[in-house]
């Protein structure tokens, strides 16, 4: 195995490149993705390689470019629609929620929607209320959508390649802070199937469940906790739909405690749903209440200090874990 290290954005580009080479059905469209190579350079070089038929700049028309993508998908193509910010995907909610997600069922199982929507969310650098949201819960809530949130270059590549080989609509949610992060990605073919969680760090005292940009932060917290003698396991579901319940329950059965860390606002989030699954199915394994550490219930403020205070930071994670362990001691 090679020890090649590449950036998250390069891993995504490799996945697109490989799948476009492999399958002529795959094409990519989005704002500024062809000539400019995309705001995060994920699609850089693809136009030169695959031509304007398969790598296409769109007008600023999110609702209809998502609709056009879904339309092409049900007719046998494999579109990758890039939406610059997850906030802008809201313009296409009708096509995502009412069309793409329901097509398979409405056709009695005959229809296929091999549609991948790539976008990015999260806070980072004061881009304010309309460019910083973490909106995975909206898609998680809708039956018929797959929701993928890679945290590492390896997962980004493997999951995107898998997404481009399966028949359901996929919300592929990247994070603006992760594009420039580096990680190990071996040469050659890698595939990461949906519904397979990854243990990013093994531990015995508490299970920390996180995804996307909360993974690096949670790993840092785990490191800090280790220095204080607390052994935290960090579990990354990688795909929220499908969710690897088995891996979650197995880890909780081992550690008996669980903290879920999400950047999205606390209220109505995916973390609450995972917590409810754990208490329902693993209640007797638990030594402490399952705790969700989420973002504050506020639109993301512009001011940097406020922005940071509105989403979980390493210190908050450490503090909550200690509280959960303490709860166990007094019990």
């Amino acid at each position, binding site marked *: 195995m090679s020890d090649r290290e590449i950036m998250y954005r390069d891993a995504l580009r490799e996945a697109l490149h490989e799948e476009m080479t492999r399958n002529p059905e795959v094409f990519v469209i989005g704002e500024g993705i062809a000539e400019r190579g995309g705001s995060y350079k994920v699609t850089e070089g693809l136009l030169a390689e695959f031509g304007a038929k398969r790598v296409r700049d769109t007008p600023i028309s999110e609702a209809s470019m998502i609709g056009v993508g879904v339309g092409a998908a049900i007719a046998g193509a494999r579109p990758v629609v890039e939406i610059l910010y997850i906030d802008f995907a809201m313009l296409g909610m009708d096509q995502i929620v009412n069309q793409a997600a329901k097509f398979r069922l409405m056709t009695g199982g005959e229809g296929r929607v091999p549609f991948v929507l790539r976008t990015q969310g999260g806070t980072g650098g004061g881009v304010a*209320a309309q460019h910083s949201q973490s909106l995975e819960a909206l898609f998680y809530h809708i039956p018929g959508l797959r929701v993928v949130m890679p945290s590492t270059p390896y997962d980004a590549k493997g999951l995107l390649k898998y997404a481009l080989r399966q028949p359901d609509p996929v919300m592929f949610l990247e994070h603006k802070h992760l594009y420039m992060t580096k990680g190990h990605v071996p040469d050659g073919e890698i595939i990461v199937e949906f519904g397979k969680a990854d243990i990013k760090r093994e531990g015995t005292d508490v299970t920390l469940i996180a995804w996307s940009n909360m993974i690096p932060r949670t790993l840092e917290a785990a490191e800090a906790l280790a220095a204080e003698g607390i052994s935290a396991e960090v579990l990354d579901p990688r795909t929220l739909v499908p969710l690897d319940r088995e891996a979650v329950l197995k880890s909780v059965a081992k550690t008996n405690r669980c903290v879920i860390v999400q950047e999205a606002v606390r209220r109505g989030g995916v973390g609450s749903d995972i917590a409810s699954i754990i208490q329902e199915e693993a209640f007797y394994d638990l030594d402490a209440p399952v705790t969700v550490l989420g973002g504050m219930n506020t639109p993301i403020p512009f001011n940097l200090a406020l922005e940071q205070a509105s989403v979980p930071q390493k210190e908050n994670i450490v503090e909550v874990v200690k509280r959960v362990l303490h709860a166990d001691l007094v019990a």
Partner: protein
Amino acid sequence: MAKKATAKRPVRKGAAKKAAAAKPAAAGKEQLLDYYREMLLIRRFEEKAGQLYGMGLIGGFCHLYIGQEAVVTGMQAATKDGDAVITSYRDHGHMLATGMDPKGVMAELTGREGGYSKGKGGSMHMFSKEKNFYGGHGIVGAQIPLGTGIAFAMKYNETDNVCLAYTGDGAMNQGQVYEAFNMAALWKLPVVYVVENNKYGMGTSVERISASGANLHDRGKAYGIPGEEVDGMDVLAVHDAAEKAIAHCRAGKGPYILEMKTYRYRGHSMSDPAKYRSKEEVNKVRSTSDPIDRVKALLIDGGHATEDDLKEIDKSVKAVVSEAADFSQSSPEPDPSELWTDVLIEA
């Protein structure tokens, strides 16, 4: 709070309006001086914002209006009290032109307590109830239905006010723009759609992305909305067109589209190296049709002002801008407790 302070308004609106009744080509001295001052204020303010950004004092996105000053200046000079403005994220010029306090605007850019949105909105999201400025929107095209709704309320409340809804060329391909056009025409709403066609939406030229090519003023044709192409680098032409369009709206005849042919000198935002166009292209516009130079020439050639008179204006504008810059750095950071406020009204 800067918000409450009375704005130092470099343009005397009344004067601009009176002169505007005259033939545009023969704009009076006072009006020309007002235009000069206003446009210069916007330019110097934006240059300062660019500097502060470079120094790391402003973060996030910051979209400068340099090059487009004539559009908002000419438009706003044709408005009256109670008229409203709504625009996109390229909004600093619009705020200054509606008379908002440069201090409060700059302090919002630096995310401070004295900013118009207490540091929570940032460059793209500022509002002023007092000046009927409705923002500051980061979702491309979203301000068009909103502006149409503002016009709806104006008509509903039986005022004779008008809403100016500004948009970029790129935004003209959003579907909601056309849904709004239809309703505005159907209900004869008093809204002027001001399309600031600066030739690019981020790095994509308008020709590359519009089936109808570079022309956007006729996009309302299907709904019977009159549209006009205007030299947006010529403040007098802008003002002339504004008077006409606003009069049309006030008379209850429904919406109007003005397509302003303009140009932004800087990148899309501070992080855009603008590789999609040549230096020559930018330099050519700057040297042949700069809106401020044009008014300056009218002032000097018409014998309305001397170089020294204009230098005095430059000086006073600079003072206003540096006062704003100072304020934006001395105003405190918002208190962390602000995270719990302004989300919902407490019962």
